[in-house]
């Protein structure tokens, strides 16, 4: 069982309490009507799909209910760090990448 640290509950909690909610830090344009179709489609449909560290939104749906962000290694499924929504993506120490 994967334990995930909820930055709001400040506790390690079992993975069944959480739901994945897509890529993090995907910003919606302030005025979508100003975008061309290609840029809008890019925002709506295209996501990065890295082999390695990925910034993701997660939701503590069966706990406090809050959305937060996490850096997860898509190779090892290891959650490297979690942080509150609105905070900047943290830098990882070099050894975290190579695990």
């Amino acid at each position, binding site marked *: *069982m994967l334990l995930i640290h909820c930055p*709001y*509950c*400040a*506790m390690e*909690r*079992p993975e*069944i*309490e959480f739901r994945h909610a897509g890529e993090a830090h995907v910003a919606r344009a302030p005025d979508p009507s100003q975008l061309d179709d290609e840029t809008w489609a890019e925002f709506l449909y295209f996501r990065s799909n890295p082999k390695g560290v990925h910034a993701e939104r997660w939701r503590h749906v*069966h*706990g*406090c*209910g*809050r959305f937060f962000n996490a850096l997860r290694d898509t190779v090892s499924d290891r959650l490297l760090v979690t942080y509150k929504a609105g905070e900047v993506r943290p830098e990882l120490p070099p050894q975290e990448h190579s695990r």
Partner: protein
Amino acid sequence: MSVPEPISQLSAHMQPGRFGADGNTPVLLSERRRAIAQVMGRKGQDARLRAAIHGAFGLDLPHPGSSVTRDSAMAMWIAPETWLILRDGSPSDDLTRDLTAACGDAASIVDQTWGKSIIRVSGARACAVLAKGCRIDLHPRVFGPGKSAVTPIAHIHAVLMQVDATPAFDLIVPSTLARDFVEWLRLSAAEYGYEVVA
């Protein structure tokens, strides 16, 4: 005027008695009836809300994962800017009225007295019973009196709070699911023996 107790959804399903395996340390199950209100702080009102609750109830709103008790009242963190306030010996209307008067527009108050049921599980085997459906580590080196968590137990959304080091736990579950929850507790406790107490 007499004080009406919150109506129980469970009284027919928690008749006192001794059940399950024999033994001299049964798990104890009981229903607790307290007025419950949810307090959700409004944006930017954190300091005002804390002062209001402190002034009216003498309670300092607790940090994530914990609860505080003073006299007959208790406050428990359940989500960011959100707490449950529980109080003994008063009808729920009085609790929501007192909270609304104290908080003004610093918080939204929702009566949960009839929406939730509180079940107490205590005894030496209480952790073993809960471990069958709860994934929080309740060992004393991790958990303890005053600690709390919002977590599914036996697939039912529950608020779990440790009362003392017996250990005793209070479990707050939706009242519409309380009967099923008690059924699960009884099945889980049967191998240790359990007693339903009033």
